[in-house]
């Protein structure tokens, strides 16, 4: 059992020899993944190497490949755009076939009336957004940004982001789905399952969104999603995409029905109050604490540098010392970005008046420099498209998000000082980027209409420096301890660190989780749907019983 030249020939017969490879260098381009260095032995940048990579072009080809893998007990790991270590094979002990879904890259349908798009895995957010915007519609581009697969965000990952406040997270926006299960069966969910089209996730056909996604998303561990329908939403204003400007700081003119602001408050209490008031008053379109990813001490200098194409990263050092920039740094120390869209001139003007009143109530203000035309257009571009997410890695190619426990603003504000102090402490020896203890970034709301939020600490390290990389690992471990000492569960770092653990450790942690019943139930699902265990452990379960 396992991978052999004969099995390779079977793969070739299914997808054609040009669409399969077992060349070690080609395979390493799939094993190499960002964040691998934080979880692999000796800080290797490589996840386990697949035995082969295949590029299926149709659902039938996916099915056929999966069936061969069932016969030969080869694990199957699909990726769409493939960013992060989750997308790579997870097991050193088992052979894994990597499926690169890039040949399945079509938008199959845009149903303007019912506000539904049907897509294949390799349609990235930028493509779908560009097409639906022509119709006055929009999608939720997730926090991972415009380069990522919308299908993956909806079917296999958390799927939230700055636009979830208005549009909902993509786990919610997922409608009907075509799913090749780990045994190679095709399940068509929701309305598709009863031949009624793509419009609904939960019937009249089978409703298995919770089953195939799992809690956080199956992250490629539970079969292959080959097509899905995604809910669209309204985008007021122009249907044009009039981007302009000089690379890298492209700009999008602010439509008359839009307002683009950077808002600041004097304290974290005021921050939480303002978030609640924004939720309660139902204003806003895109709601995100974005620019602070560069750190509260450096963010203004960094973004002003970025917006001047004649400057480069080293200029941030002296710019941060400029008295005017220092003043700006204090002015926007606790700030976030907020875009409002009105359905009419009256609507946007009302939202403006409401926002002014709310700011007055909490003692907040608009950060003037970042609301001037150049920065407003840049902010508008950045947050509407989310095409700069790779800037997370700008300092030195290494970034890991820690914290990000999601809850009410009041709850989140309580961990911000802990997270800030933790980064300050762990960066003190200079092995992590020192940009101010607060490099916390995150969506104004994880759900439409508001209610809960979360902030992620941006921890930057040099991915080409072993000591720096090890410092990032130590920081992740420290963050888990810091959280635990305050009675909090692990944040994102816990999810990442899971990949460095043995099966036994992972199972023990899931058994000790607050709601282990979920993982017991997911075990039953896995036993039923993946009897040959060709998925990987990213579909989280307790161990097999007995």
């Amino acid at each position, binding site marked *: 059992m396992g991978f052999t030249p004969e099995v390779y020939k079977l793969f070739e017969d299914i997808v054609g020899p040009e669409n399969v490879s077992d060349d070690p260098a080609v395979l*390493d*381009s799939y094993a190499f993944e960002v964040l691998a260095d934080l979880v692999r032995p000796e800080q290797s940048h490589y996840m386990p190497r697949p035995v082969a990579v295949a590029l299926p072009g149709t659902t039938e080809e996916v099915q056929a490949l999966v069936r061969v893998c069932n016969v030969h007990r080869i694990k199957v790991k699909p990726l769409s755009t493939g960013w992060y270590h989750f997308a790579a094979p997870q097991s050193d002990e088992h052979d894994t076939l990597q499926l690169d879904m890039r040949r399945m890259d079509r938008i199959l349908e845009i149903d303007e009336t019912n506000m539904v798009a049907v897509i294949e895995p390799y349609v990235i957010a930028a493509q779908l957004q560009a097409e639906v915007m022509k119709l006055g519609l929009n999608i939720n581009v997730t926090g991972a940004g415009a380069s990522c697969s919308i299908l993956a965000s909806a079917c296999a990952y958390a799927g939230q982001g700055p636009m979830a406040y208005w549009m909902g997270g993509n786990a919610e926006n997922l409608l009907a789905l075509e799913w090749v299960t780990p045994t190679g069966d095709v399940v068509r969910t929701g309305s598709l399952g009863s031949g009624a089209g793509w419009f609904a996730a939960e019937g009249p056909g089978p409703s298995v969104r919770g089953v195939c996604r799992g809690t956080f998303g199956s992250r490629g561990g539970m079969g292959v999603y080959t097509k899905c329908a995604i809910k669209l939403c309204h985008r007021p204003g122009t249907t044009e995409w009039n981007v302009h400007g000089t690379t890298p700081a492209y700009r999008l003119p602010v439509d008359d029905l839009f307002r683009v602001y950077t808002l600041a408050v004097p304290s974290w209490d005021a921050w939480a109050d303002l978030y609640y008031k924004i939720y309660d008053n139902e204003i806003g379109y895109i709601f995100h604490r974005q620019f602070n990813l560069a750190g509260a001490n450096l963010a203004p200098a960094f973004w002003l540098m970025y917006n001047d194409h004649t400057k480069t990263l080293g200029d941030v050092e002296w710019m941060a010392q400029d008295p005017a920039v220092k003043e700006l740094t204090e002015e926007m120390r606790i700030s976030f970005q907020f875009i409002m869209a009105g359905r009419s001139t009256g609507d946007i003007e009302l939202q403006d008046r409401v926002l002014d009143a709310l700011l007055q109530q909490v003692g907040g203000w608009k950060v003037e420099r970042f609301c001037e035309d150049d920065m407003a257009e840049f902010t508008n571009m950045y947050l509407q*498209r989310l*095409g700069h997410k790779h800037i997370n890695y700008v300092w030195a190619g290494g970034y890991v998000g820690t914290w990000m426990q999601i809850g009410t603003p009041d709850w989140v504000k309580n961990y911000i000082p802990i997270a800030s102090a933790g980064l300050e402490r762990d960066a003190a020896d200079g092995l992590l980027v020192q940009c101010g203890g607060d490099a916390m970034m995150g969506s104004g709301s994880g759900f439409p209409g508001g209610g809960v939020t979360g902030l992620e600490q941006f921890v930057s390290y040099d991915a080409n420096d072993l000591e720096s990389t090890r410092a990032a690992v130590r920081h992740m471990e420290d963050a888990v301890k810091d959280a635990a000492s305050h009675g909090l569960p692990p944040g994102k770092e816990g999810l990442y660190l899971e990949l460095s653990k043995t099966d036994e450790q992972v199972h023990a942690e899931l058994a000790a989780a607050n709601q282990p019943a979920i993982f017991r139930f997911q075990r039953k699902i896995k036993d039923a749907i993946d009897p040959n265990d060709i998925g990987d452990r990213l579909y989280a379960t307790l161990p097999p019983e007995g």
Partner: protein
Amino acid sequence: MALIDYRPDAMRCTRCSYCKWVPLDLVKSWRYAKGCPSVEHGRFHSYSGGGRLITYLSLLDGRSEVTDRVVDIAFKCQLCGNCDVTCKVCRYDMEPLAAQHEFRFWLVEQGRVPTRYESIIDGYRRRGTMVGDPNTLVGDPQSDGLRWARDLRVKDLNTDRGEVLLHPGCRFSYDGGLGPVARTSLEILQEAGLDVGVLGAGRCCGGRVYHMGYRDDFTTAAEATLAAWEAAGVKTVVTLCADCYHTFKRLYAERGSSVEVVHMVEMVARLLAEGRLEFTEEVPLTVTYHDPCHLGRQGEPYVPWDGVEKKIFGQAVVYDPPRPRYNGAQGIYDAPRDVLRAIPGLELVEMERSREAAWCCGAGGGVREAFPEFNAWTAAERVEEARSTGADAVVSACPWCERNFLDALRGPRGGDGTGVAAPFQDSGVAAAPAGRGVAAPGVTAAADAPFQVFDVLDLVRQALPRKGA
């Protein structure tokens, strides 16, 4: 630099895959979002800019060996630079394009090159030009490369001295199917009163062998050319070819040349702005402009740098002194457009992928020479995009792009002219397909004329006052 010097770039690559697309902010449709011909054709991640970094990292780490597939990965890429632009939208510490060049140098040193390379480089060494390889190219290697200047009085800088050199490049010298662009340029420069001369046939800038990975052959060509310029007292070189432009502007400058380098479209824009040239004739065409990679995003001026990496704020990677940032921000985009907009009756429409986000014509990086099918596929993709604008013609400022588009329109073995991708086989015959902008001034395409290909100078020629009028 050596390949090992680019190990940090690979280690800091995040596999984000931005390099497979045009800058994401510029995506305006599903159809024209993709930016990397290599990965769209080769499909596996290794064929992207980031994928190549990982490929050589794997080799350097001893995890894999140089196989035929690895050679294919390294060389089946136009070195068009889209990956460089898109990576640098978010990064200041990455040089994916320079790293890919270095990967090729490294493989050439080991003698690991694509099968066709040996005969191509052999032909180059014999003829001193890339044009005329019977395998891959139209053009007549036996012809006199100065035929285009016949009947014109022009200084020969092999024997004379002059401050301004007109360098048409191999393709305009030898490819008769590309029309009188060189001749028109010479006439314009002479009428502007410039002390212009030419250096005769057979002087290849060496850029194309550099891109194929033959650094030593390039150095030989560069040294010979620079010596000839020096002997002739050349202070300014005006070129018609984007490849030559980049080679002179960046690669020669890197080797110490201080000769001013100007593309002919910049010269025409300059003469128009100074009122030394005027357009009087209507050219009633709708055209779209194709930015050649080496004039557009790679056409930025050379900035000397001899520095080191250092860290600020603990771990942020910067360079001391600041490293020049080649990211396409300062390429030559406006001059050709200004010239086209100044032509009476002409309407300029844009393709979705333009300026720093332009899709490559397909010809660069040795691809036209070594991978004809990939070359033709890439060109056909661009022709299709150009046609989608509703334009009558695609205009460029580089003979390699124009030759590639003409071949794509002609289709395989004479094809149907639709420009749809199909296996390509060059006939090896010089051709001037119908619709090439070689008609007399004032003569323009009929309404039902096939899609056409022009050089900017073709249209300039049509717009100039008629002689004797």
